């Protein structure tokens, strides 16, 4: 394996005057799982489409699986699986036909694909849907079939754009569990998601994207530790000026959002006592999460 699975240097893409991707650099090693987090419109899908050649970059250099995307996209795709954000299953075909026809696009014969299809349908718990029409599948089944289709040629590298968005909790958990299994088998994975906890659990590294750029990139736990702290105190209902002023000397960062005060602390010792001594007994104390980091970096206003 020569170097990196993804090696992007300052890639850019504009749609008219809008810079959707604005100088992204990213390197992902074989066997690694990288998660891109970002609000809607951040440029995640555009970045992913650049990796498989559906969007061409305006500037920068992009190599995937050791090859240049601008000239060798077809050969790259032969070793890569893609689960797009939009549903691209073939609604004119059954589940089984979807898979063997797609295998054909990788020059795998129908006969040779049969055992792989059996394995994948079992793996994705779709075996009994073998002969079903696509329109009879639930959203979760469609996603799973999508993932099965992307794995049909035993790729070295899997890309998933919001694989769990819009799924019910059961379906979501099944997808995450399967992705973890694939990762443990050594597959290199790049995914985008809005589910912070799952991303934090599964990804070796995450990148937080906004306005077409990575704001931050690294292992999730380290990033949360460094940029947010260990603990968060949430105080709901009005907070007195007096209390706010008194926090000055403590190792906390305060943020007021509507009627909630967030205190991000690096070393919770003393904070709780301080709050109680100010007569504040009604608060929530919890570990800092990726979501805290995400919201602090990308702001709290709505995006779409």
């Amino acid at each position, binding site marked *: 394996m020569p170097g990196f699975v993804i090696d992007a240097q300052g890639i850019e893409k504009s749609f008219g005057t809008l810079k959707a991707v604005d100088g992204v650099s990213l390197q992902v090693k074989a066997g690694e799982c990288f998660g891109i987090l970002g609000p809607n419109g951040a440029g995640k899908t555009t970045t992913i489409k650049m990796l498989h050649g559906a969007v061409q970059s305006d500037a920068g250099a992009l190599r995937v699986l050791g090859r240049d995307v601008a000239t060798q996209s077809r*050969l790259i795709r032969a070793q890569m699986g*893609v689960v797009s954000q939009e549903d*691209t299953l*073939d609604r004119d075909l059954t589940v089984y036909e979807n898979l063997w026809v797609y295998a054909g696009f*990788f020059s795998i014969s129908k006969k040779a694909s049969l055992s792989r299809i059996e394995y994948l349908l079992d793996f994705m718990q779709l075996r009994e849907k073998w002969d079903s029409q696509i329109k009879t599948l639930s959203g979760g089944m469609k996603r799973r079939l999508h993932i099965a289709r992307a794995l049909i040629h035993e790729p070295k590298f899997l890309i998933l754009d919001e694989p769990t968005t819009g799924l019910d909790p059961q379906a979501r958990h099944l997808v995450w569990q399967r992705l973890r299994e694939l990762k443990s088998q050594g597959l290199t994975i790049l995914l985008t998601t809005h589910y912070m906890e799952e991303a934090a659990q599964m990804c070796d590294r995450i990148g937080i994207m906004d306005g077409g750029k990575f704001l931050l990139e690294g292992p999730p736990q380290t990033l949360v530790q460094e940029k947010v702290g260990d603990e968060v105190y949430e105080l709901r209902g009005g907070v007195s000026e007096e209390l706010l002023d008194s926090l000055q000397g403590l190792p906390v960062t305060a943020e007021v959002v509507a009627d909630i005060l967030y205190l991000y602390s690096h070393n919770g010792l003393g904070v709780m006592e301080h709050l109680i001594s100010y007569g504040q007994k009604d608060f929530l104390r919890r570990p800092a999460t990726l979501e805290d980091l995400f919201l602090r970096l990308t702001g709290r206003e709505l995006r779409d």
Partner: protein
Amino acid sequence: MLFPQAPSHRAFRVWVRHLVYYRSFYLAEWAGNLGEHILWLVAFGYGLGRLVPSLDGISYAQFIGPGLMVSVAMWNATYESTYGAYSRMRIQNIYESMLMAPLTVGDIVLGDLLWCASRALIGSTLMLVVLSLFGLVGSLWAVAILPILFIEAVMFAALGLIATSLAHSFSFFNFYFSAIVMPMFFFAGTLFPIKGLPLWVERLSEALPLTHAVRISRGLFIYGYVENFIWHLSFLLGFTFLFLTVACVLVSRRMVE
């Protein structure tokens, strides 16, 4: 690579995808085709034909027979490459899913055109069956029309795909049909001879690709012989290649941003 989106033998896999879908409804389509073909032949060949004197010693029904085969190929290829391809490209995201696999835009375009032409050829073959049942086939060479119609159908499918890559909704095809396909149908000598019409009509007709398919087919169908065969065939092949290239470029622009 000089042309990263160029077509290759993998176009066959795209063709297979369309065939798999076709398996689910072909019998109904064949029945419909046969009924329609018989209706056209009876209404025009024998209904209207009663008013038409014999043309160069052949009956009107026999005159329009090859014209109908050629136009069936054109209409079928056109429908499949406009309404059908638009749905695959813009609504069902089928092209998009193929581009996530190791296929090029050229593979997808060529596979689609070969499919459109295959379906058109089936329609024309059914027309040939109807014509022979009515005893209108003058020469066994009529069978040799089929490969010519396949080329013609690829050409019209490519033209239809050009329209599809420019279309922003289905309603664009109304314009395409009335501005391009209908005039072609009427002024290519399918239903009436062009000779004797005003000179500019003759000239226009000579420039229409469909005219050349009609000339070849009528010659083979009635006499088993075609005057200026090489010229007509080159005309068809030239336009086929031109439209195919333009279609590849335009579909690339649509699919790769």
